[in-house]
């Protein structure tokens, strides 16, 4: 982290108005501000009590002033607790809202998906010219389904309700299948997928659907943000404790500034926005949650306009063999 950023984030944290704006509450209902007031009252109270005690030898006056200050502190604490409660409730309401909306969106999206499938299968119902349009509608519909699925997954992660279905699986097989599935997409971007897979990598215990999602996401990103006519290398190796998986591309890369926030929810780097308008900024957030819940680590290294590698590890013997979270 550069000194400038450190300083600016330090000053940002001291800027109470900005901090309170993030919670969308007024200054008087903002815990940061109320804590500051409470600290101020405590200092004044201590100094005041000292002065009163020195000036008037009467213990009753001291008791009276201490009681008064305690009452003020009690009232402020109460307001602080209420404001925390309000923020927590707002966050809960938002999570429920996302969940309800997402489920409600899924029904019409399913209807569209299945109706298109029926139309395409029954070739008599649709002429050749209309087929590409229908395919585009289908692609957009699938994109919306993925987005809704991702939002629901984020909701589960934040509510700590992500349940891993752990079984013994081969990361090699999943990766090979993903490479096969993404070959055509890579070819349309003039990118070659190069597997460097150590076949002796052992099976491991993990949630197959979710890890497949992580691998597909990382391969998809590597292709999407890779430069044309360059390779994307997908590598798997292992040592006695863990399996190492990585995808490396040649492309625009990730700036140091963006790198710090790349795994944050809804974050999209400047370079990625320039290259691709599609993307919700949820993929890497979900990927990190899945890998970490599986007992592994995830990270990346990047040199701008040269090479970027996203990697994750998984334990060979997963200690979390039962359903967890």
């Amino acid at each position, binding site marked *: 982290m550069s000194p400038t950023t450190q300083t600016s984030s330090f000053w940002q944290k001291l800027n109470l108005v900005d901090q309170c704006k993030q919670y969308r509450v007024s200054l008087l209902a903002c815990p940061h501000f109320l804590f500051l007031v409470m600290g101020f009252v405590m200092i004044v109270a201590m100094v005041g009590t000292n002065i009163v005690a020195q000036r008037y030898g009467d213990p009753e006056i001291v008791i009276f002033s201490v009681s008064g200050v305690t009452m003020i502190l009690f009232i402020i604490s109460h307001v602080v607790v209420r404001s925390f409660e309000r923020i927590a409730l707002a966050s809960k309401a938002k999570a429920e809202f996302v969940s309800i909306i997402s*489920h409600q969106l*899924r*029904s019409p*999206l*399913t*209807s569209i*998906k*299945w*109706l298109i*499938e*029926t139309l395409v299968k029954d070739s008599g119902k649709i002429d050749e010219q209309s087929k590409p349009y229908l395919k585009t509608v289908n692609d957009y519909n699938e994109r919306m*389904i993925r987005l*809704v*699925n991702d939002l*629901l997954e984020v909701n*589960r992660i934040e509510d700590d*309700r*992500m*349940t891993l279905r752990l079984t013994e699986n081969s990361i090699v097989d999943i990766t090979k299948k993903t490479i096969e599935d993404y070959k055509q997409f890579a070819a349309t971007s003039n990118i070659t997928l190069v597997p460097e897979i150590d076949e002796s990598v052992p099976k491991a215990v993990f949630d197959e659907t979710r890890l497949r999602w992580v691998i597909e996401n990382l391969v998809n990103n590597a292709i999407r943000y890779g430069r044309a006519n360059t390779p994307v290398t997908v590598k798997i190796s292992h040592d006695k404790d863990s399996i190492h998986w990585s995808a490396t591309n040649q492309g625009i890369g990730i700036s140091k500034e963006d790198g710090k926030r790349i795994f944050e929810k809804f974050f999209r780097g400047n370079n990625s926005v320039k290259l691709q308008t599609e993307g919700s900024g949820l993929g890497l957030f979900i990927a990190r949650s899945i890998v970490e819940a599986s007992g592994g680590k995830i990270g990346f290294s990047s040199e701008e306009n040269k090479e970027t590698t996203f990697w994750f590890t998984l334990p060979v013997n997963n200690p979390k063999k039962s359903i967890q979270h």
Partner: protein
Amino acid sequence: MKKILFIEDEAVLQKTVSEVLVNHDYEVLQALDGEIGLRIAREKQPDLILLDLIMPRKNGFEVLEELKQDETTKHIPVIVLTNLEGPEEVERVLNAGATTYLVKANYSLEEVLQKVKDTIA
């Protein structure tokens, strides 16, 4: 001809899936809410039930639990076809005795048909 009861309140989905099943030589019984579905299941004894969860009058959880408690219907395999997928819902449904749990939006009609075939092969 094998009989499939499809309990689903969304008319478009009901029609689309039923058409596919009929085209693959299944007899389809349709119910637009849980109560009617339960009645048809008892009267007609289908070979398989496709069951939605969020429905008016009687929801899918209640229907499934009643089906599995009733001696005349407990043997009928039930595929839950829903757009809910919270861990609690999946667990409740599988504990209640559902054969499979499918999240509609994540499956193609072809895949749903395959699950039906696998279940009542």
